């Protein structure tokens, strides 16, 4: 990220901020989508986070922290807006699975297992999984973005994975029961 652009945007340069948005927007959107699993809400969240970034940019002390700071704003906005939208998200229709090659079918089958289990996780657990396993952030950076101690970030990741595993196992048991009933 260009430090000069950040400094210019801190002084009200809209073109500089536009360049920053183009630089960081895709990554923010991809992250928000993976946490919230909804394109429309992810767009809203990114817009809100970047508007907050613009508004408070003059108070950002270290221009080099611009990217991590925008991710902090994004995560908090995900929490706020995601909680409001959770009910609606549960009602969305699942797209039918297309036919394809064997590998693709296996991959999609895995997706079909992971997606419902992931959706049942809390926003906090989904967020830490995405930050760690999609963005590949170290735990220190995650702790910084979430505003929690490193130990809390570590234990939260541990419990998020444990919840995910429990959800997958529960789904598997349900599937087996259905098979047995046929």
């Amino acid at each position, binding site marked *: 990220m260009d430090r000069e652009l950040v400094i210019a945007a*801190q002084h*009200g340069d*809209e073109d500089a*901020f*536009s360049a920053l*948005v183009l630089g960081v*927007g*895709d990554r*923010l*959107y*991809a992250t928000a*989508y*993976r946490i919230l699993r909804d*394109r429309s809400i*992810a*767009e809203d969240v*990114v*817009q809100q986070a970047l*508007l*907050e*970034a*613009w*508004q*408070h940019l*003059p*108070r*950002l*002390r270290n221009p080099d922290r611009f990217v991590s700071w925008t991710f*902090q*704003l994004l995560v*908090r906005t995900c*929490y*706020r807006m995601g909680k409001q939208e959770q009910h609606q998200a549960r009602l969305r229709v699942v797209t039918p699975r297309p036919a394809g090659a064997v590998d693709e079918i296996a*991959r999609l089958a*895995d*997706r079909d297992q*992971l*997606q419902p289990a992931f959706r049942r996780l809390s926003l906090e657990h989904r967020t830490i*999984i995405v930050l760690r*396993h*999609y963005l590949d952030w*170290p*735990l*220190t950076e995650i*702790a*910084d973005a979430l*505003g*929690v*101690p*490193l*130990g*809390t970030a*570590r*234990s*939260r990741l541990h*419990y998020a*994975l444990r919840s*995910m*595993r429990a959800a*997958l196992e529960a789904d598997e048991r349900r599937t087996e029961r259905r098979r047995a009933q046929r």
Partner: protein
Amino acid sequence: MTPLDSTLEERLRDWLVDGPEALPDRSVREIMSAVRALPQTAPRWWDRLLSAAPALLAGGAVAAAGAIVAIVGVSMLTRDAPSTGGPVADLIAYASDAGGTLDIWTVDLASGATVQLTSGPESDTQPAWSPDGGHIAFSRDGDLWTMAADGSDEVPIVVGDGLTDGVDWSPDGSTIAYSLQRGEGGSEIRLIGADGSDDRLLLAVDAPFGCCPSWSPTGEELVIAIDLSTTGGEIDLYLLDVDGDVPRRLTALGGDDGSPAWSPSGDLIAYQSDTGGGLAIIAPDGSGRRDLVRVSNKGFASDWSPSGDRIAWVDPSGELWILDVADQGDPTPISGPTSATPNSLSWRPVARGG
């Protein structure tokens, strides 16, 4: 890490790759259109000062460990703690994002009234009252700050590249103990004068977790939570003399123990215990350990009331709870806070006037 964890992590990585990668152009246009109508906030004096920190620090005070720097400006510090006398409300300071970003708030336990003390885009967490109740130390984006109890006179105390998390004020008010996360490879327990002077390293560990110092009432010892296991994964409580002697292990029951809080009388330490799945207490000599209450959250902190008869904590939904330690009845919810952060909590001492 079990093989099952490893497999699950790999599956998650593969699955998370799927999905949109680009913010739609329409969104970018909408953002920029809104930006043109949205005024920016003005920088504050310390933002400007800290933006110039590298230049200021060229000949300044560099901490022994290297990267942490204490910025001390006598003219910046306002140490005339208000002393109003009269009755003092029972207040708890906590962190919450109820205002949009993580800030420090207080709640009056009698009325449930909440007051937002800090604002702005930074993450303000880990409040700790000074023993006279006149100031609060806190973590701002991983830096250590103090402010007056009414939220005025914010002062940066430690600014650096580590993350300050656990913060506690010494019983005589002269010193602040804090933990610093230096990355996944190390953490430190440090002491610094409340005016930002004399930052010193007390304990450095290679393990990724060393946290949450809490002073004994005598001011001679700290209880800390550290992961010293060679295999990683187990956090236990240790006692540490403030002269930096070798830490002495206090808990070793399996599972993580964390967020210790020393009672005002000094005879008990409250902490988060995996063993009992919640809040536990133990004497500083390791005797008398007992579970008090189950808490459905693994990252919560607790603090004692000034009289030592009650303990407060925040549950995952952001609700504050109080337990009478002697009665051990059901915990009482305090309805004031919303969206409180479970790991940030400090009960105001009553030394001041009341």
